[in-house]
């Protein structure tokens, strides 16, 4: 029997994986991929919560969690579009994809 706890444990693992990727990786593409992984971990948790916590009344299940996931996916897609454009311009201008090489936006 797969319970809510199993889903949440998996979600937490995936999230930690993404977080570590963001903090450790230097390649900007990989950092973005890690962010996507974190977003999907959150999506998984949302879907699981919806399935297990919302009471089933007849056949109709309130799909709030699922709908929210679609929003997340849409926003993530938009974010990736912007971020990839930034990454591409970064490479064209500075000839690098390492986030440590563009640390000149500071006080």
């Amino acid at each position, binding site marked *: 029997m797969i319970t809510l706890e199993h889903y949440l444990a998996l979600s937490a693992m995936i999230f930690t994986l993404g977080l570590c990727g963001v*903090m450790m990786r230097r390649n900007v593409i990989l950092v973005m991929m890690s962010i996507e992984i974190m977003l999907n971990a959150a999506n998984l948790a949302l879907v699981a919560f919806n399935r297990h916590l919302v009471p089933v009344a007849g056949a109709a299940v309130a799909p709030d969690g699922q709908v929210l996931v679609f929003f997340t996916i849409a926003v993530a897609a938009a974010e990736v579009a912007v971020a990839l454009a930034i990454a591409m311009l970064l490479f064209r201008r500075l000839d690098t994809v390492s986030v*440590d090489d563009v640390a*000149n*936006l*500071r006080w």
Partner: protein
Amino acid sequence: MNWLILLLPLTSAFLITCFTQKSKWLSATLALAAVWGAFAIAASHLPAALHGEGHFVVADSFRWLSAGDTVFRYGFLIDGLSLIMLLVVLGVGGLIHIYAIGYMHGDPGFSRFFAYLSLFMFSMLGIVIADNFFQIFIHWELVGVSSYLLIGYYFRKDSAAAAANKAFLTNRVGDFGFMLGILMLFYATKSWVAPGSGAGDFRAMAAAISAPGWLEQTAMSIGGGRWIMTNEHFLWIAGALTFMGVMGKSAQFPLHVWLPDAMEGPTPVSALIHAATMVAAGVFLLARIFFVYLPSETALSIIAHIGCFTAFFAATIATTQNDIKRILAFSTLSQLGYMVMAMGLGGVDASMFHLTTHAFFKALLFLGAGCVIHAVHTNDIREMGGLLRKLPITGWTFLIGTLALCGVPPLSGFWSKDGILHLSQHPPHYAHDWMITTLPTITAVLTSYYMFRLVLQTFFGKPRDQHRYDHAHEAPTWMWAPMVVLCVLAIIGGQLIGSPDTLEAFRTVTRPAGVMEFEPIHADEQTILHALLIFGLGAGAAFAAWGPRRWIHPDRILAIPGMRAVHALFDNRWYVDDFYAWIVKYVQQNVARACNAFDQYVLIGFIVNGGSWLTRATGAIVARYQTGSVRAYALLFLAGVAALLALNL
């Protein structure tokens, strides 16, 4: 039609300022036409008023503003009281306008002067015909502004600019109290006056106060009825505050200091504003709102004593001054004191009667002083002498004005001033003390003394400055013609309006029941002897000290031990000005310094600069965490979220 009384001078001021500055002739014509046009309208009411037996009234008003239930109206109320005041202001004012054409001839600001005069007429007429407190306050302040402009007419002269400021600031003190009083009365009218009538309407308020049992009703209750103020107490506080406005405008002690300095203005201004009309506005206001004071004997007693003291105080100072206009200014103060005192003693008619006759002879005296100054180019009476031969018309009219002021029968001053002296010798019980019964008579003696000291030094004796004497010449027709008219009024004005029937016609519709009836002076032997005795004492003393023979030389009087101190007291105006200067220099300046220190060190130093320092210091610390490294941000972000979760869970 009646609105034109206000509109004509206003239009004239506007036209002169905007269009006719270049043409002196046109400016003067406009101003004169406005004054005499308004005078004709006012005079057209005279027959109706004389047959109205005190019930004559013409009124109209329109709604100007409304805030919630409170309606502010602007209108005119022409009854006997405002009609006599209108005729005085416009009649004397019109004559002085004519005089000013001659006096200001050749002055580069000629048009500006007439614009100011018209503005003053508009402001003053607004006070006279106002039918509510709201309107009277607006015009009260407008009069203050016109007075400021006219005192400071020679604005390049430092002393004139300073005098204008002094007049304005001193009036501010009085007007502050006046405004508080008006606000109290406004507050009260809500419960007194039927809805629909304007806030502070004189007639509605007078009617409410006269209602039986009204005085015992509650005006204010604070703390759930633990502290209750009856209408009677409410009224006397409001009345005392309102009286502060009177003290400022009518220059009563201790707010009198501005009037002598106001003589820096051109002489026609001194005659019109600072002798005949504007300074009488306070007395007029007392008559108009006498219903506020009548219920409270305490308030009336205060008014009577302040007026009485001012009369005496100013007369003593006038005995030592040497500037011809200043002597007349202190004399004006003294006479205003008489009027205010008469109001306090319940003699509304007596006071208004004296106001009218005083306007005639004091305007005449000032215009005469203007002619003298015009002729010898100095204000100092010690440099004059023997001018009667050089200035016969001025001299003789001045002499008649002086006799009228001293109350010599049968001139106008006798009828009005002896009415007030009579009142003071038989005062109502609340003011029956030595001050009220003796000081006015002593003041009358002093009046004769200082006026004859002035006349003897100016017009008689040997010329003390031969050069000035040789160049003196009689004033042009523009100047002496109005003086002759005023002189006639100063002679016959007493009998003209002093009869019981006429005074009855000139009473106000806002007059509450219970005001003392004016007892006209019966010119029997005793009264005439009494008046002549007072006059003889003062004039005789002046003749002995300042006459051609100088029987008792003033230096010999000064030699008496103690007299020098008394002379210094009078000469320094009882040190009131010095006292105020001391207050400003030490008290006010130290308070200001303390406030400044609080501002500099606490407000600016601590709160304003401290706040900005805190922000900058925090910024300097936080800025170190902005490394530019994305990975470091992610770590910090994680730490922040973790910390938040830890705190919440």
